[in-house]
């Protein structure tokens, strides 16, 4: 192994890759844009859609109620809903979104209230349809208020205090520090994104530097040089690793900036600089701004490194086998699904790290990152995961070197 040669190959590949738009797209541009787009793009669209749905006054139908004119009149007076004339096809009208919900008033509803009966009001809505659920929600709110008012009136008639029906109150208060909240909220998502971006960051350079070179005829040119093949493969591997790590680095930096900007906007346009740790202190009790433990993030980076090595070596080995970039892509794209699966499983609640799962590649990373971002440090599992990841990475790298020494692979046409 000659480090001067490895460095020469690496620097050339770096220069070459920096001039390639597709590599820049997969290792810098997409990782940088993914978080702001997810947060502000998708978030803005989603909040716009929800806001628009909320701003609409839901149309509702009243079924029955001829003997309850008072309640019907109050429903019609309500500014939160718009009562439309009842039709016989009211179910179809809800299905076709002509009306959002319908309410069935039982016979002699008003009379029953006065007599102290307990009739049941049925609200019809279309499950899973947002505007329909808003309409049903408004109706529920109306009848909840009516029930409370009726209770108060009944108690007053009997000269009993209102607290009789509400003997005590309760509320929830959070005791988790902001970084734990952040860890629980983002702990699953961050490793998931890291795993995907690490792989996509490695994918394109790996294809370009191996199958792409074979396709363009530069591989043979390179092999004519006196540099040992192990040096060539290590130089190329370092470039693929750079692509993988840069994708992750740009994604994490972009995520940090996005979190600061989002935090600042959440606080009503306060200074961005103060939006980090100071944010937690300035927020009223009970509404904690989730933060990510910086030490956890450092831990995540350390754990991701051998996995990035594994991805780089794996992508290089598979691409090397292919005759063309297109063939390499057809091998690597399905692998993406295999890689996403453990990352998704790691996001699921209720799956906790144990000694056996600590040996499962990628799933172990996903689970340990979730823990570290929440401030939980199981050092024994961390050691097992780091060690096993290093072993997997070393095996993948050894495979890449072996593959590069195979004539039938290098000259496969």
């Amino acid at each position, binding site marked *: 192994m000659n480090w001067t040669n490895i460095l020469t190959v690496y620097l*050339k590949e770096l220069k*070459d890759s920096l001039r390639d738009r597709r590599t820049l797209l997969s290792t810098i541009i997409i990782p940088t844009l993914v978080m702001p787009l997810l947060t502000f793009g998708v978030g803005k669209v989603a909040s716009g859609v929800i806001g628009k749905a909320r701003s609409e006054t839901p149309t509702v139908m009243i079924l029955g109620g001829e003997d309850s004119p008072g309640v019907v009149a109050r429903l019609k007076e309500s500014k939160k809903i718009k009562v439309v004339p009842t039709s016989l096809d009211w179910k179809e009208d809800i299905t076709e979104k002509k009306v959002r919900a319908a309410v069935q008033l039982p016979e002699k509803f008003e009379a029953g209230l006065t007599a102290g009966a307990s009739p049941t009001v049925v609200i019809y809505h279309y499950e899973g349809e947002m505007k329909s659920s808003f309409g049903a929600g408004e109706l529920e709110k109306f009848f909840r208020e009516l029930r409370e008012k009726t209770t108060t009136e009944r108690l007053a008639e009997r000269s009993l205090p209102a607290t009789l029906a509400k003997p005590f109150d309760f509320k929830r208060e959070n005791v988790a520090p902001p970084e734990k909240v952040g860890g629980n909220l983002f702990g699953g998502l961050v490793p998931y994104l890291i795993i995907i971006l690490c792989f996509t960051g490695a994918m394109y350079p790996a294809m370009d530097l191996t199958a792409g070179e074979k396709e363009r005829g530069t591989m043979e040119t390179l092999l*004519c040089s006196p*540099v*040992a093949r192990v040096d060539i493969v290590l130089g190329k591997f370092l470039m693929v690793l750079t692509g993988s790590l840069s994708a992750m680095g740009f994604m994490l930096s972009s995520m940090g900036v996005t979190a600061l900007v989002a935090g600042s906007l959440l606080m009503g346009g306060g200074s961005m600089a103060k939006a980090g740790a100071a944010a937690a202190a300035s927020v009223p009790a009970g509404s904690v701004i989730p933060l990510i433990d910086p030490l956890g993030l450092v831990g995540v980076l350390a754990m991701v490194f051998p996995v990035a090595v594994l991805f780089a070596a794996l992508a290089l080995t598979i691409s090397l086998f292919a005759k063309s970039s297109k063939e390499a892509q057809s091998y690597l794209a399905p692998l993406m699904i295999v890689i996403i699966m453990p990352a998704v499983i790691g996001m699921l609640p209720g799956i906790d790290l144990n000694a056996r799962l600590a040996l499962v590649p990628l799933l172990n990373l996903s689970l340990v990152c979730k823990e570290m971002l929440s401030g939980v440090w199981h050092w024994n599992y961390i050691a097992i995961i780091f060690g096993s990841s290093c072993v997997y990475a070393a095996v993948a790298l050894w495979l890449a070197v072996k593959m590069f020494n195979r004539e039938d692979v290098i000259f496969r046409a």
Partner: protein
Amino acid sequence: MIEALHLTKTFRDKKRGDIRAADDISFRVSPGQIYGLLGANGAGKTPTLRLLATLLNPTGGSATVSGFDVAREPEKVRTQVGFLAASTALYGRLTAREMIAYFGKLNGLADAEIRARTQRIADELAMHDFLDRRCDTFSTGMKQKTSIARTLIHDPAVMIFDEPTLGLDVMTARAIVKFVRECRNRGKTVIYSTHVMSEVEKLCDTIGIIHGGKLMAEGTLAGLRTIYGEQDMEEIFVKIVGAEDAK
């Protein structure tokens, strides 16, 4: 100096079984000599030259290049060899200067030496107009000049040309032929493979006719003419290869 002794390369193919791409090939090329390896497509020219350039490992026999064994000292062999083939392309996103410098560095040359040699080669090949342009913008002629510069940067003692004029226009092909001749004049050991008879007639001091991975005949142009009683190289070639095919 190149010496091949019973050089053999067998490939294993799942459908066709064992294929002997180079079969018991022996020849010798001295400095200041051009050895022409003449054969049809698929005759075994490229595997033979790839064995000499250590891109492939022999499965039998041996070969030395400038005294270094191709199987035991492949890296030392490659320091002695400049390999130019139709299949050795340029890095499109590098400039000609960067391409030459890269191969200079891979050959262990210092930066100052690379600069000086690049300047000299660019003068000789009239490359200054496009030296700092990216290779993916080059014409075929510019690409060939850059490839030649790439093979010359470490001043190798042995030059291996594998069908270097394949697909080139007449003017570019003539420039390549001129360059091969210059290599001989500088005392380099040259091996040149082609299936173009006229190139062999014009260039080569010794001609080896290869067919089915075997070296069928070898000699000077005059010697082959005498042995086979034909003046035209094409007729000689057909006589040798045709006789083998008739068996």
